[in-house]
């Protein structure tokens, strides 16, 4: 993120006002925000609209009068709850939480000061708990907002209790820790992010004294962006694949002309900037983002750099796929998408050449094309600030997925050596574990519901809360599926919901991650659902298919397995007649909770 000038902030506000009047004419998905703060943020709504429009959301923003955070959250009859918001943005400024301390630090030392910190943070935490309870579907975004000054600035030692800095920092630390109380509480660390620009530029004394506004327009605009990137990350609206140019992007110079020893890449000078960009890319790779290459080059020259240049941080093994040839890059990117079985809207294209960037923006508009700075030394920090790969946290499953993509490549090479598909599949020693969803798997299950597009029969976007309710409903089975084979553990990569009512069991959801497709795992999974339906006394199993722009590949899933087309989008299997065969080469474990 670059800093936002007052002119830019005014333009954003004007755009936001126009969006407010437009009534969502682009028909973007909508979200209702309620904002509660300890100071005046009446200027925030249009800026939030503008930031969210750029991530493809139309938001409605309701600002409750400032200074009533706890009252609004604790009272079930308050204005806040009357609006039924999807998201609640809390902005408690530490200066307001610790007002008596800032007013007169000398009167607030020792026990009284500690007491103030404890009371205020406990009250806030309690109101948030009540908010999450009163709005069981909503997400709460808690802004950590520092003060930019200590209560007594003229005392210099940061440890001096009279200065009050330690108390301010303790409150901020408490707010940061609150993230652990619920998966639906997202911490927006404005204090940390605003440091990079200097918090002074986000404050205007006139706005404070004339209107009780602690943030000026650039501040509110930057905060809106930050809330937007947390929203994107929370909802999994992030990208999964980087397509890299090589010459002058991964290294300095043109390898086809300068040769292996002539390119700029190493521990010194600008070569280090190229290396640092590679380090950032490797970090993404380690967390499951796929790295690919689309380069116009002689493949042998380019691959020699990956294999033999001492300065390379990225090696050939880190690339999930590459296209190094002389064809146009739009075609290369389409081929990469096909090879990886991922949608183009998962892709980000990095290229130093503005012409190539424009070509991709026009030719493959789904691909995100950041405006890579011309100066290589600016690129590592530019790249770190990109929000398209951000996520709220990193789970073990994410790390495992990164591992498993690498394994997929080995598995694929094995596939080409085995003489037939059945022989290949049998050689994998596949084992699947199907388990009723539980506290430890809810998060991953919801994540899959949000992210899986292709092998997804009904594309039900269940959240953690939805799943908790489903799992508790009578006649309902909510299952996750995990896959192991001789190369390793892919973790949870499948999900299904089966609802049984009388003699009919309906498969409400069925999805698999693309990493485990083409291995008949879907058949084994279906087999378990069918046996479960039988256990529950059903005679019919009904499968649903809800078409989307991305799930064409499963349109014929049920008919291909002996289900008879019923009414629109429904397929019926009579358990007294035929049962789809289950693949013999997969061993199945079912762990069902009582």
């Amino acid at each position: 993120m670059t800093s936002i000038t007052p002119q830019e902030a005014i333009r954003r506000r004007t755009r936001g006002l126009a969006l407010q009047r437009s009534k969502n004419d682009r028909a973007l998905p909508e979200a209702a925000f309620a904002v509660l703060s300890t100071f005046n943020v009446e200027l925030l709504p249009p800026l939030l609209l503008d930031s969210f429009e750029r991530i493809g959301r139309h938001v409605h923003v309701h600002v409750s009068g400032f200074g009533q955070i706890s009252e609004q959250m604790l009272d079930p009859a308050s204005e806040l709850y009357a609006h039924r918001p999807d998201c609640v943005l809390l902005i408690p400024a530490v200066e307001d939480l610790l007002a008596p301390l800032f007013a007169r630090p000398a009167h607030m030392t020792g026990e009284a000061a500690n007491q103030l910190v404890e009371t205020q943070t406990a009250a806030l935490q309690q109101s948030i708990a009540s908010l999450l309870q009163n709005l069981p579907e909503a997400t709460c975004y808690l802004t950590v907002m520092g003060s930019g000054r200590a209560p007594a600035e003229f005392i210099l030692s940061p440890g001096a209790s009279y200065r009050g800095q330690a108390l301010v920092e303790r409150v901020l630390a408490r707010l940061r820790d609150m993230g652990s109380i619920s998966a639906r509480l997202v911490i927006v660390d404005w204090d940390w992010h605003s440091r990079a620009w200097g918090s002074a530029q986000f404050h205007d004394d006139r706005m404070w004294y004339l209107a009780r506004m602690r943030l000026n327009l650039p501040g509110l605009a930057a905060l809106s962006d930050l809330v937007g990137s947390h929203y994107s990350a929370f909802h999994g609206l992030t990208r999964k694949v980087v397509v890299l140019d090589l010459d002058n992007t991964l290294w300095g110079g043109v390898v086809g002309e300068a040769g292996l020893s002539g390119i700029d890449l190493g521990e010194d000078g600008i070569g280090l900037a190229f290396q640092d960009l590679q380090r950032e890319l490797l970090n993404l790779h380690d967390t499951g983002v796929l790295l690919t290459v689309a380069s116009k080059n002689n493949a042998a020259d380019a691959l020699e750099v990956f294999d033999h240049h001492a300065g390379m941080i990225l090696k050939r093994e880190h690339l999930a796929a590459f296209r190094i040839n002389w064809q146009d890059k739009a075609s290369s990117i389409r081929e990469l998408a096909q090879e990886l079985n991922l949608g183009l809207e998962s892709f980000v294209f990095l290229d130093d050449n503005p012409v190539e960037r424009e070509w991709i923006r026009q030719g493959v508009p789904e691909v995100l094309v950041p405006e890579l700075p011309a100066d290589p030394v600016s690129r590592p920090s530019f790249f770190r600030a990109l929000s398209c790969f951000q996520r709220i946290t990193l789970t073990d499953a994410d790390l495992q997925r990164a591992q498993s993509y690498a394994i997929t490549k080995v598995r694929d090479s094995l596939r080409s050596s085995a003489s037939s598909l059945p022989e290949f599949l049998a050689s994998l020693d596949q084992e699947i574990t199907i388990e009723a969803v539980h506290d430890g798997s809810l998060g991953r299950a919801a994540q899959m519901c949000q992210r899986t597009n292709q092998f997804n029969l009904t594309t039900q976007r269940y959240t953690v809360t939805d799943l908790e309710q489903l799992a508790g409903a009578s006649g309902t089975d909510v299952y996750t599926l995990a896959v192991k084979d001789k190369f390793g553990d892919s973790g949870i990569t499948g999900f299904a919901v089966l609802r049984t009512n009388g003699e009919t069991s309906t498969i409400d959801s069925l999805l698999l991650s693309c990493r485990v497709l083409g291995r008949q795992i879907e058949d084994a999974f279906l087999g378990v659902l069918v046996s479960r339906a039988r256990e529950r006394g059903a005679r019919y199993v009904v499968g649903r298919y809800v078409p989307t722009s991305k799930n064409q590949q499963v349109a014929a899933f049920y008919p291909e397995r002996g289900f008879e087309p019923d009414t629109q989008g429904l397929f019926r299997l009579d358990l007294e007649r035929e049962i789809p065969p289950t693949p013999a080469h997969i061993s199945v474990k079912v762990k069902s909770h009582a």
Partner: protein
Amino acid sequence: MRERVKRVMSDVFGVPAEEIPDDADAETLESWDSLGHMSLMLALEAEFNVSIPSETMLELISMEEITAFLGRGGSTPQS
């Protein structure tokens, strides 16, 4: 200059520039409330590259006052 001010007002208040009278003021223009006023002041600063002191902000509540202030190059008259 008046036209430029009207354009800024039009953006800030969300009304067409043609509908803003030459003698517009905070009394007569509906969307010129206290919040609109703060936004207008910030937008004028950005558009005309001036800095408006807090007391002047409280005074610039009509087209006349605004154009006079900008006509002086954004300086406050010495009294």
